[in-house]
């Protein structure tokens, strides 16, 4: 078997094992949440009878391990269960499948994540390479200062500043990114511009500095010295000789940031009223809508594992030493 295929299969196997452990952690963590759906949804108005009616109806009176296996077996078959909200003992069942609840939200999140990534990844790579090329120059220093400044501020602050300048003082972009499935593509891009810029500002520093550091690190190695002696230009050295060997750490950092864009943008969603999956999960935790929480957590775990797997594979196929191990 080709070593790359072998490594990929190995990583995939490890990923599945990780997923299994993560599912147990998710389930136990949720078990430890105080209160339950009935209490959360009825709030101050909860009576012991109504709470008990909810528990029985939702099957929460069954032992935890049985509920875990029910859920895990379902999840393997792609069935994440049915949301707790919308069920009612009398009257029609209006509850939605977890998949149906998550899908449109996940699509929104992926849309915003891709938009932010499409701006942020090329931007940080270019800035990273340029700053490596002109390191310690005025340009290098100002780019570093600017990106470090934007990453140092909390997301909501960056978001508010953008709202202030681009939505409030000059009404260029809308402050509400409230898209719905009927919103057309152009309108969607327009509405999500400010959240995408916010996310870009937040993640650029990490990726850009990693690119810069990885390249600078390689510039000290003997083979680059060799290339230099052979008369290659600075640009040639970086793009042709240094960059191919730097892909592994850069890919890892990019994967990490992409995963963050999918799972960690709830603050930005709240500020811009964007119907993404983060807000769905926070609401679900608050009201103890457990199937939705579990579904979201599982999807987040899969996102991390997959993106890291891809980063690993990129690291392997671009690195001759890993590609041809002795």
């Amino acid at each position: 078997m080709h070593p790359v295929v072998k490594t990929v299969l190995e990583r995939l196997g490890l990923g599945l094992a990780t997923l299994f452990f993560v599912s147990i952690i998710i389930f136990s963590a949720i078990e430890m949440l105080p209160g339950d759906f009935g209490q959360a949804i009825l709030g101050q108005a909860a009576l012991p009878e109504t709470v008990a009616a909810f528990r029985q109806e939702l099957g929460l009176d069954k032992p935890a391990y049985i509920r875990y296996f029910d859920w895990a077996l379902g999840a393997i078959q792609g069935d994440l269960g049915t949301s707790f909200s919308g069920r009612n003992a009398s009257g029609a069942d209006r509850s939605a499948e977890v998949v149906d609840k998550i899908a449109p939200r996940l699509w929104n999140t992926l849309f915003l994540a891709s938009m932010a990534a499409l701006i942020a990844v090329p931007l940080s790579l270019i800035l990273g390479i340029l700053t490596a090329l002109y390191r310690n120059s005025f340009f290098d220093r100002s780019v570093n200062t600017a990106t470090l400044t934007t990453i140092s501020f909390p997301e909501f602050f960056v978001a508010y500043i953008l709202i202030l300048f681009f939505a409030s003082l000059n009404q260029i972009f809308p402050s509400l990114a409230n898209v719905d499935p009927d919103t057309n593509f152009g309108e969607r891009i327009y509405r999500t511009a400010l959240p995408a810029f916010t996310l870009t500002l937040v993640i650029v520093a990490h990726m850009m500095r990693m690119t810069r550091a990885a390249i600078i690190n390689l510039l000290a190695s003997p083979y680059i010295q060799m290339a230099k002696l052979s008369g290659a230009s600075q640009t040639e050295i970086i793009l042709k000789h240094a960059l191919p060997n730097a892909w592994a750490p850069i890919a890892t950092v990019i994967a990490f940031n992409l995963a963050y864009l999918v799972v960690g943008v709830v603050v930005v969603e709240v500020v811009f009223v964007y119907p993404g999956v983060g807000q769905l999960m926070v609401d679900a935790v608050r009201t103890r809508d457990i199937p939705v929480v579990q579904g979201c957590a599982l999807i987040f775990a899969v996102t991390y594992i997959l993106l890291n797997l891809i980063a690993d594979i990129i690291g392997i196929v671009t690195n001759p030493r890993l590609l041809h191990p002795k």
Partner: protein
Amino acid sequence: MKDKFIKAQQEKLTLGAIDRRQFITSAIAAGIAIPTALSLASDAIAATPKKGGKFRMGLGHGSTTDTLDSGTSENHFTLVNGYTFGNHLTEINNEGKLVGELAETFESDDGKTWVFNLRKGVEFHNGKTMTSEDVLASYEHHMGEKSTSAAKGSLSPVKSIKADGKYKVIMELDSPDTDFPYIVSDYHISIRPAGDMTSGVGTGGYIVQSFEPGVKSVLKRNPNYWKEGAAHFDEVELLSIVDPNARQTALISGEIDAMDRVDLKTINLMKRNPNINIMQATGTAHYTFPMRLNVDPFGDYDLRMALKWAVDRQELVDKILLGYGAVGNDIPIGTANYFHNSDLPQREFDADKAAFHYKKSGHSGKIQLSAADAAFAGAVDAAQLMANSAKKAGIDIEVIREPNDGYWSNVWNNDAKGWCACYWGGRPAETMMFSAAYVAESKWNDTMWKTTDSAVKFNQLVKDARKELDESKKRDILYECQRLIYDDGGLLCPLFNSYVSANSKKIAHGKIAANWDSDGAKCVERWWFA
């Protein structure tokens, strides 16, 4: 005389009984100068509801677990949405008065048997005509044994409910309650077509087009709406915008026309905007710190009294509500209530009285007060301020910050905590408020004030008040009830909070109701574009 005539003419103009020309002619005839007459006419016309437009409102609530089932309606988004597409047997109008809604009239001879005469010719959005069958089914939805409705408790006094023909519903209570018609105006008890309690089909002024929980609700005007002079907008979009800054920015940049829950910290900046109106309504909503009599040391009368005197209420109004509210007087009845007992002297901070009672109680050591902002915004700060003022009277209050999560199940109304922060929306009728949290059999009796002599007397008086049909006698009884809570109860109620909202100057409305935020949560059917 002249003013009165002009006012009457203005009203006629508002209602469309006379036109602008007739109004101006009559005003000039009454000796008013022409420019004044013209401006009077425009004032009156501004108050004339106009049809049309798309109303977009940002609400500070809303969650992805919201539904269209009124039984589990729990936040202001679901409340406003519910009142927009649904009706109830009765409603509280914008004057705070109870009137029939789907029940044209309602009556009772003894306060025990209530007859609701339903309005004829009311259609549900699906075309079905509303009859007693639907009312019965709707009530069964909340009262049934397996019901998960939050209204189950308030409807528990209903012993039987039956139809008498297609347009009459008779409810039998287990004991008389002359305020029962108030209970049926509760936002939980929406009338829906039999067999479909949850899909959002109602009889209201707007028809649900799409509902995305925690995001928005899109509605359009019901062309067959039975209610006159209501539902003026063509289209409505209710948006859940939980972040206050996002809500305010949206209003300032014109993406929404109205919003609830203005952030008091930035209200002065909002006021400067020339296109925005700020509205304030002080109603029945109040913030409380219930002391549980069955938990030591709150069973002691003097200790409770000491704590009641140890709170600087005005400071709380100034610092927690930033002036948007009123001081409370340890009764759960506000000035907006009809039978509010205004004879009780307003309790103020009095270190001497507090120290006197505290000494008499013989208590020493720390008194724990649990608070979390889940109770109300600023609850923890309010508790700290209380601890601070109590220190001046030699009382040591230890504030315990509780997690917001599970606050209502694990802290409030729980014997593990003797004293905590709480919030009540209040009730339009005094006996309803008492039944909710102060009578012995209430499950939400968070003060556990049940067994003292005053409490026993109170419970009897509430029963008497429910039976009483004579207004002045009822007033006497209810005044006495309030006095008993004021003196002996476990209730420490320092604040009545105002509902503060904002809207674009394009919006016009009549008098604003104070029973709930957003014009009694009925702004969508009451407001219009000027």
